[in-house]
C-alpha cells in the first residue's frame, strides 16, 4: 500500500475533473491554437481562451489579455524579475523582497545581481511575516519592483498582501506576488490587493504539471524571456500547451470554489495535527505563524531528533523535510534559518502539507505514529540524553564541522 500523501506543497494529484476535461485535448482536439486556417486550430484556440477566462475569474483580473500562460511558476517568476529589469532604465535598479521567498525568486535575483541589480531584503519577524515599515524605508528612486510571496511553501506563513500592495501603489512601484501556494487556499484578489504581477503553477492546485501562468496587469510591460513565434501577444513565445492550459483553467475554477468548504475542512485537520503534536509530544514547536498560515500547512520541529529519521519511521505517510527542490541536498532549510530557527532544530523539522485526500482518520493515525516514534528515536538520541541532564545542546562546545 502506498503511504498517505501529505506533501501537497511539493505537488498535488490531478483532480479527476481536471483530467477529464483535458483528455479530449490529448486526443482528437490536438490542434495548434496558432493554426488559424482550420478547425483543429480553432477548437484549440477557443478552449485556451475559455481557460484564460477561468484564470481571470480566480484572480478577479479585469481582462483575459492580462493572463499569460507559461510552463511553470519558476518561469513566471523569472519572467517578471528578468523582464522588469530588462526594460528598466534605472541604473543599479533595486528589487525589494524577503529572505524566505522561493528559490525561483532568490536565485533569479542572485543572477540579476551580477548585472548590477540590487536585492533589498525587507525585515521579517520570527513567523516570517514581512515588516511593512521596513519595506517603506527601503523604497527609493531606484526601486523598480516589490516581490513578496503570498504564502510560504515550507512554513505556510501568509503575507499581508493588501497592505504591501497599498504601499506599492502609493509609491507607484509594481508589486509582484508568487501566489503558487496560496491559490485555492486563501482568496487572492489582484484588484483589492493591488497586485500588478502574480505567478501561478497549476500542479500546486490539483492541476497538471508543466503549465503555469503570469498575471500581468494591463499597462505594465516586461520584456519576454522566450522569443519566437509571438504567441501570447509576443510576451511568451512557444506553441501553447493546450491540454495543460485547459487543465490549469479547470483547476483555477475548482480552486475558486474550494475557498469556501475545502479550505475550512483542511484547516480543521491542520489544527488537529498541530494541537495534537504540541499537546501529546513534549519539546515540539510549530514553525511559522499560529493563525496567519496556509490552512493546509503544519511545520513542526521535534527537538533532538533528526527529521529524516523520523520521516523514515513514519513510512505510512509521505511527508518531507522542506521544499522538494532543496531536499536532495543535505543543507537545512534556509527558510527556517531566516526566521531564526537554530540549525539543530531545523534538522529536526518536518513539513506536513495536507490536501483533499486527507481525512481525520489520517491525522489520528499520524499522531499515534509520531508519538511512538519520537519516543523511540529520542531514546536513541544522545542530544535528548544531554538535554535530560540539563545540558543546552545549542550552547555545548561541539567539535569542528566535518562536512
Amino acid at each position: 500500500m502506498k503511504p498517505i500523501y501529505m506533501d501537497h506543497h511539493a505537488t498535488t494529484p490531478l483532480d479527476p475533473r481536471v483530467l477529464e476535461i483535458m483528455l479530449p485535448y490529448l486526443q482528437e482536439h490536438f490542434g495548434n491554437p496558432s493554426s488559424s486556417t482550420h478547425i483543429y486550430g480553432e477548437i484549440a484556440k477557443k478552449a485556451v481562451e475559455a481557460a484564460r477566462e477561468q484564470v481571470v475569474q480566480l484572480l478577479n483580473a479585469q481582462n483575459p489579455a492580462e493572463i499569460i500562460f507559461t510552463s511553470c511558476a519558476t518561469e513566471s517568476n523569472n519572467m517578471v524579475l528578468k523582464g522588469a529589469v530588462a526594460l528598466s532604465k534605472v541604473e543599479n535598479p533595486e528589487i525589494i523582497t524577503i529572505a524566505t521567498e522561493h528559490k525561483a525568486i532568490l536565485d533569479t535575483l542572485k543572477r540579476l545581481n551580477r548585472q548590477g541589480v540590487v536585492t533589498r531584503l525587507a525585515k521579517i519577524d520570527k513567523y516570517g511575516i514581512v515588516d511593512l515599515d521596513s519595506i517603506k524605508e527601503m523604497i527609493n528612486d531606484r526601486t523598480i519592483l516589490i516581490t513578496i510571496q503570498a504564502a510560504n511553501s515550507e512554513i505556510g506563513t501568509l503575507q499581508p498582501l493588501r497592505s504591501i500592495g497599498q504601499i506599492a501603489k502609493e509609491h507607484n512601484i509594481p508589486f509582484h506576488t508568487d501566489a503558487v501556494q496560496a491559490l485555492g487556499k486563501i482568496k487572492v484578489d489582484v484588484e483589492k490587493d493591488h497586485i500588478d504581477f502574480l505567478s501561478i503553477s497549476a500542479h500546486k492546485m490539483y492541476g497538471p504539471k508543466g503549465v503555469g501562468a503570469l498575471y500581468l496587469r494591463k499597462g505594465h510591460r516586461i520584456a519576454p524571456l522566450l522569443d519566437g513565434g509571438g504567441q501570447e501577444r509576443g510576451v511568451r513565445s512557444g506553441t501553447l500547451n493546450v491540454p495543460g492550459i485547459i487543465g490549469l483553467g479547470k483547476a483555477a475554477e475548482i480552486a475558486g470554489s474550494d475557498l469556501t468548504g475545502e479550505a475550512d475542512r483542511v484547516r480543521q485537520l491542520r489544527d488537529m495535527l498541530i494541537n495534537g503534536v504540541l499537546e501529546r509530544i513534549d519539546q515540539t514547536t510549530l514553525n511559522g505563524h499560529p493563525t496567519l498560515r496556509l490552512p493546509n500547512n503544519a511545520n513542526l520541529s521535534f527537538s533532538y531528533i533528526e527529521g529524516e529519521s523520523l520521516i523514515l519511521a513514519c513510512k505510512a505517510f509521505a511527508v518531507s523535510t522542506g521544499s522538494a527542490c532543496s531536499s536532495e541536498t543535505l543543507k537545512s532549510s534556509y527558510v527556517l534559518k531566516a526566521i531564526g530557527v537554530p540549525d539543530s532544530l531545523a534538522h529536526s523539522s518536518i513539513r506536513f502539507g495536507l490536501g483533499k485526500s486527507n481525512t481525520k482518520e489520517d491525522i489520528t493515525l499520524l499522531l499515534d505514529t509520531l508519538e511512538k516514534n519520537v519516543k523511540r528515536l529520542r531514546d536513541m538520541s544522545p542530544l535528548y540524553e544531554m538535554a535530560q541532564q540539563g545540558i543546552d545542546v545549542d550552547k555545548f562546545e561541539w567539535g569542528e564541522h566535518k562536512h
Partner: protein
Amino acid sequence: MSTFEYSEKVVEHYENPRNVGVLEDANGVGVVGNPTCGDVMKLSIKVENERIVDAKFKTFGCGAAIASSSMLTEMVKGKTLDEVMEITNKAVAEALDGLPKVKLHCSVLAEDALRAAIDDYRKNQKNKH
C-alpha cells in the same frame, strides 16, 4: 537524500538497531558530530584485555547514521583494539551493502566515533597509572 537508495540492510538496521544505549560500565566513550550539521554519534565501549567486550551507541541523525552506528557496534564487539583499528568507514558502508553517495559521511562519522572512544579509553588508562 533519497531514502530509496538505502539497501535493505540499512533499513533493517535502522528499524531494529542493535546495541542502543549507553554502557553503564563503559571505559571508553566517544562523541562526534554536531547537531548543526544534522548528526551526532555517541559510542560507549567496554574494553577488557585490549578487547572490546561490549559496545552501545546513541545517535542523532538520519537513517544511514543510525544504521551505521548500529552496524559499527556489531562489528567491534569481541575484536581486539588492534583488530578494530582496521575498521574503516568503507568497511562499515560495505557491511551495510553500501550507502548512497550523499550518505557516505555517516559511515565516516561511525569511524570517527570509534576512534574517539578508543582515544578516550587510552586516556582513561593513562590517567589510572
